[in-house]
């Protein structure tokens, strides 16, 4: 129990120190943020009905659009391209003797040696 209290006190002191020293820099920036948020809030509560329906609709729309978009564009394009690239590189067989690419043929078109 005593150890737990000590740990909690240590964490609280650490957070306190971080807040204390970052306050000089972060609080003025926060004031700027406050300015634009308050500006937007002038329009916010009056135009939006104060019930959960509006927010539930936003949530559901985001959820459904997320599912649809991820279904159509899962972001695998890059991986597939890299795979194709690798396959192409592997398929470019090289001549044992001159080192030039010979494709799938048995004889090298450059030096004529059999591979």
């Amino acid at each position, binding site marked *: 129990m005593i150890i737990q209290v000590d740990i909690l006190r240590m964490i609280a002191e650490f957070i306190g120190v971080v*807040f204390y020293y*970052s*306050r000089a*820099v*972060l*609080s*003025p*920036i*926060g*004031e*700027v*943020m*406050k300015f634009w*948020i*308050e500006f*937007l*809030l002038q329009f916010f509560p009056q135009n939006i009905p*104060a019930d*959960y329906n*509006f*927010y*539930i609709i*936003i*949530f*559901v*729309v*985001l*959820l459904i*659009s*997320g*599912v649809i*978009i*991820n*279904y159509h*564009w*899962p*972001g*695998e394009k*890059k*991986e597939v*391209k890299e795979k194709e*690239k690798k396959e*192409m*590189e592997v*398929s*470019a067989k090289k001549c044992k003797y001159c*080192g*030039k*690419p*010979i*494709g799938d043929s048995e004889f090298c*078109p*450059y030096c004529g040696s059999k591979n």
Partner: protein
Amino acid sequence: MGGMKNLFRGFIGMAIYMTTTMLIPALTFDFVDKMEIPIPPTDQILDIEIAQGGIAVVIFWLVALGLTISGLAFFTWSSPKDSRRKVVFSILLVFTNCFYLWSYKFSGATAFGIQIPGLGSVTLDFVGMVLLYLGAYTLIIVAKIWKLIEVEFGKRKEKKEEKVFVPESTFGKDGGAL
């Protein structure tokens, strides 16, 4: 297959945000509001009052903006890595988080009134702390915008490489045709 993985990731993100922006704060405020601390030796009750008794307003804004944040978190977390939509939605998520934080202020949740029997009352105002967090969020927004620029340049570079890419199987290393 990748789509399913993305969706799974999205649901995890949504669950995390639902817990941290709605469940834990709402339960904490409710707990603190109902909490009664007996002061010895007379066992009089120390009453903590949140938002001057308007706890319902606080919880309304927590849930309303928490829902919006959770939806945006689902979209952000489910988007593929290094995609434009992930970065754009993460910026939107941070902006909504700023609104969420400020909702603590305008719903009155930052002001705690403590009634001490026989002594009077004390009011604790946490607006300074909210401003501190808003400042930190500003830095996050800047970092995200930088990330967006980075992703945009990456995409352009990728497009250019696609145009120039000629596999080795078509031409030899020295440029000779097969």
